[in-house]
């Protein structure tokens, strides 16, 4: 670590950073360069994503063909699939770890970590993050927590299996479920480290956005990506510490005999001493993070889409101010809606009324965003790059998944669909699939920026998108029906008693779509890895985008711009803007005006 002692501090001056001789370790491993850190985040996130999605295929197979033996189960699950038949305990472990990995490791760190790191300095015109060192620590803590989470899969009694929401007492008592032993301890340790990582990252993002904007880059000239990352970081700072406190209290209950969440429990033939705690308290603490977490996952995806849709429509994003206002409104409301996960938890029904009210309010800014995206497409000149397709796909799943939220957010309706597959379908569409589309869109769009001008193959991108888009709806649309049939989630099999027997074929359809969708992600992986080494090199600004990152050097240098940092003279969305007499574009022959181009004579600045 001594290398860090004399590593360059971030250079705030207009002359570019000094070049130190970098060793392999400082360049590729303990790098403080935000571009390298973003790649580290992405690749770790994708790796975790492979594990998470593979797990979902395993338990989907169990649901479609309950208790059928599969050799693949025996290979991956070993002693938990004797003779190839999946064990109920490992089924619960799989759904738990699938949820944890996808929500935190893929969609929080993999999405927000990757693109906040890559884009914040590049799009605001900074040489690096405010603190390169903290940024590096943040990544390595994330890496450590990923390693611990993966290690927990190999614990003798099995990994955590109380659901990703780890409600106590189930998660607190190893007598209740084997996964609540060492597996749960590792889960909590991993998450505590993850939270530390996320906080360090978020603080850094906030400070960087507030302090290191280049000359001319006022807050109202920021691209919507940056607005989204900035507000996401703020939500993270507000809510993650609460999860940490919940995790610490749970650790105390588990290991040190406290009773924060435990009371009046008789299990395995004996009465526990715990008295006076309440699992409902845990639910409050968990969802105080858990709900904002949905937006921590979703807002970066929406920010990425805003940028990509505007660029590829060759049009300004419609209603920039409204977009910023809805990000702010969503961020504020997201911290006061957590109770809609707890309508029937036993909390006072009056609280349920309040949370219904705030929850349905949050539909308003979300609706505004959806309408603005659609209007941005209207009368555009749409360039159907893979990133654009994924962005349009995101708007589609965001609408579909968001609409069913109106059912779930209504406390009276929630009574009967709570914890059924209806909920599973809803949140997978609105946050899972939508955020994944945002991740893919971002990777396709900024791949040239990450990998020194190389581009991903567009045709493979088209295959990837269309099969994924069909598959995702094929999985989650029918799932609403089995939810409304009253089928509870997290059931190892639905055929143990006859009532749900007629849902067997829906489950088969869902699983087939899931397998096809998962398989086509291999096309993406192949494209990703192949393009890193052999992708075609495109022009410096392949998508003809206005934002600053495309003015930076194609080759990665620490400090981003070889010369002075560019100044900014306009917002990021002057696409297809005409000159005064409307005879041609502002810059003749070019339908875009980069932010670094000063206002032309007689040109009116957009009054946004």
């Amino acid at each position: 670590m001594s290398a860090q002692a004399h590593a360059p501090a971030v250079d705030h001056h207009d002359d570019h950073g000094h070049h130190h001789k970098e060793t392999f370790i400082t360049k590729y491993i303990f790098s403080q360069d935000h571009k390298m850190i973003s790649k580290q985040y992405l690749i770790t996130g994708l790796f975790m994503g492979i594990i998470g999605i593979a797990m979902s295929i395993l338990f989907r197979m169990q649901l479609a063909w309950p208790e059928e033996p599969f050799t693949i189960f025996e290979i991956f699950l070993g002693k938990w699939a004797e003779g190839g038949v999946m064990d109920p305990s490992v089924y619960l472990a799989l759904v738990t770890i699938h949820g944890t990995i996808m929500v935190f490791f893929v969609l929080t760190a993999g999405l927000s970590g990757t693109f906040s790191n890559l884009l914040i300095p590049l799009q605001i015109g900074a040489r690096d993050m405010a603190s390169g060192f903290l940024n590096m620590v943040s990544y390595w803590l994330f890496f450590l927590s990923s390693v611990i989470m993966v290690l927990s899969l190999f614990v003798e009694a099995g990994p955590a299996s109380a659901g990703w929401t780890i409600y106590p007492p189930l998660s607190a008592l190893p007598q209740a479920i084997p996964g609540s032993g060492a597996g749960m301890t590792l889960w909590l340790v991993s998450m505590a480290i993850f939270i530390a990582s996320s906080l360090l990252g978020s603080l850094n993002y906030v400070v960087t956005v507030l302090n290191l904007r280049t000359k001319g880059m006022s807050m109202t000239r920021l691209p919507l990506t940056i607005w989204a990352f900035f507000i996401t970081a703020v939500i993270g700072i507000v809510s993650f510490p609460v999860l940490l406190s919940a995790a610490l209290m749970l650790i105390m209950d588990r290991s040190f005999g406290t009773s924060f969440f435990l009371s009046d429990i008789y299990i395995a033939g004996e009465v526990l001493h715990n008295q006076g705690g309440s699992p409902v308290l845990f639910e409050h603490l968990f969802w105080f993070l858990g709900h904002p977490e949905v937006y921590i996952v979703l807002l970066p995806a929406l920010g990425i889409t805003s940028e990509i849709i505007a660029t590829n429509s060759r049009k300004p994003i419609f209603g920039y101010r409204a977009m910023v206002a809805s990000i702010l409104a969503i961020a504020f409301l997201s911290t006061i809606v957590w109770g809609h996960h707890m309508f029937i938890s036993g909390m006072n029904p009056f609280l349920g009324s309040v949370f219904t009210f705030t929850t349905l309010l949050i539909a308003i800014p979300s609706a505004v965003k959806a309408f603005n995206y659609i209007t941005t497409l209207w009368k555009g000149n749409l360039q159907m790059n893979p990133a654009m397709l994924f962005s349009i796909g995101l708007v589609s799943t965001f609408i579909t998944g968001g609409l069913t939220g109106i059912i779930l957010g209504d406390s009276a309706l929630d009574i009967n669909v709570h914890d059924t597959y209806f909920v599973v379908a809803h949140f997978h569409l609105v946050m899972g699939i939508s955020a994944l589309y945002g991740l893919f869109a971002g990777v396709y769009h900024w791949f040239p920026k990450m990998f020194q001008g190389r581009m991903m193959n567009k045709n493979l991108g088209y295959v990837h998108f269309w099969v994924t888009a069909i598959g995702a709806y094929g999985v989650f649309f029918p799932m609403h029906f089995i939810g409304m049939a009253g089928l509870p989630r997290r059931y190892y099999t639905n055929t143990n008693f006859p009532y749900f027997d007629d849902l067997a074929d829906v489950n088969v359809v869902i699983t087939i779509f899931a397998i096809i969708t998962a398989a086509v992600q291999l096309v993406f992986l192949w494209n990703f890895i192949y393009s890193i080494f052999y992708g075609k090199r495109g022009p410096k600004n392949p998508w003809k985008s206005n934002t600053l990152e495309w003015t930076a050097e194609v080759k990665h240098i620490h400090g981003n711009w070889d010369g002075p940092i560019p100044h900014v003279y306009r917002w990021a969305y002057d696409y297809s803007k005409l000159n005064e007499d409307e005879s041609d574009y502002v810059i003749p022959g070019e339908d875009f005006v980069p932010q670094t181009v000063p206002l032309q004579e007689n040109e009116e600045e957009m009054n946004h």
Partner: protein
Amino acid sequence: MTAFLVVLVIILFGVAVWQMSKIFEMSKTGPADNASEVASDKDNNVNGWLMMGFVLFIYLLSIISFWKWGDVLLPESASEHGVEIDQLMLISMALIFVVGIVTQWLLHYFAFKYRGKKTQRATFYADNDRLEFIWTIIPVIVLAGLIIYGLFTWTDIMDVNTDDDPMIVELYAYQFDWRARYGGEDNTLGEANVRLIEGVNQLGVDASDPYAQDDVVVNELHLPVGRKVLFKMRSQDVLHSAYMPHFRAQMNCVPGMITQFAFTPTVTTEEMRMNDAVVDKVRRINEIRRENSRELAAKGEETLEPYEFDYLLLCNKICGNNHYNMQMKIIVETQEEYDAWIAEQATLAEALKQ
């Protein structure tokens, strides 16, 4: 059914192969078109059309889903408040379907209509306060209506009181089964605590409490039709959730506290078995069971009994390895049948004496 699945898979596979071949074809159309990884006019055109195809796919998927699986949904509500919930559900569903169909159409149609061409110029259109006001205020009004409607329904359902003399029943959850405790003649439950669990006294009822003497503990829930029931829920170990989908009722069972939910059952089990949707469902399930039985018989194993409909109480909060099998039968019957049944059950005092 299997045939349908096979056809579906074949169609999907066909689409995938067709797509692949088309794309490989495209990639061979010469260097001019494929020189860069940025979308060409041809890509825009193909993908624009595919967008149109995709919105049709969504519509088709909805129609097929309704046609194939519309009948798996829950039958009509068997409780008084459930009718209100179903009504609200219907209105909300109609609303989100209309909004969904329109917005998905606009999104994909615009993606198709404005697919890029070299000769085309996008319209610089950054703002329109009036438009934005309109699509802010419309959701505000619609949602306000839904919120008010929803809150009235919610308050009605959750307003648990003893004004109209409900029958008091305790639902007791433990890994991995249910017990029901009736208040008995005095309709009052005796005090209970897990610390008092001992032998037959599985629910930890305080045997010295005078109210507890006539309590009745059973593992099958019987309810008289038309009488309001107030459920008091307890859990012995971890969180459980008492989910009674046919009655549109659910409440978590939380160790350390008593939660409650009240409803009035309106349809007896016998009547529900005659319900068209239920008759259909039972017939379908029995077809599946007959098929499975044939397979079992071929293997020399015991065949399955024909299925008869019963209301169920399911656990709907992950509670451990056998979560999927934690259920109890609910029987709604006439007051006379209920009286006859409860008279046969041993009271707690009798049970403890044995």
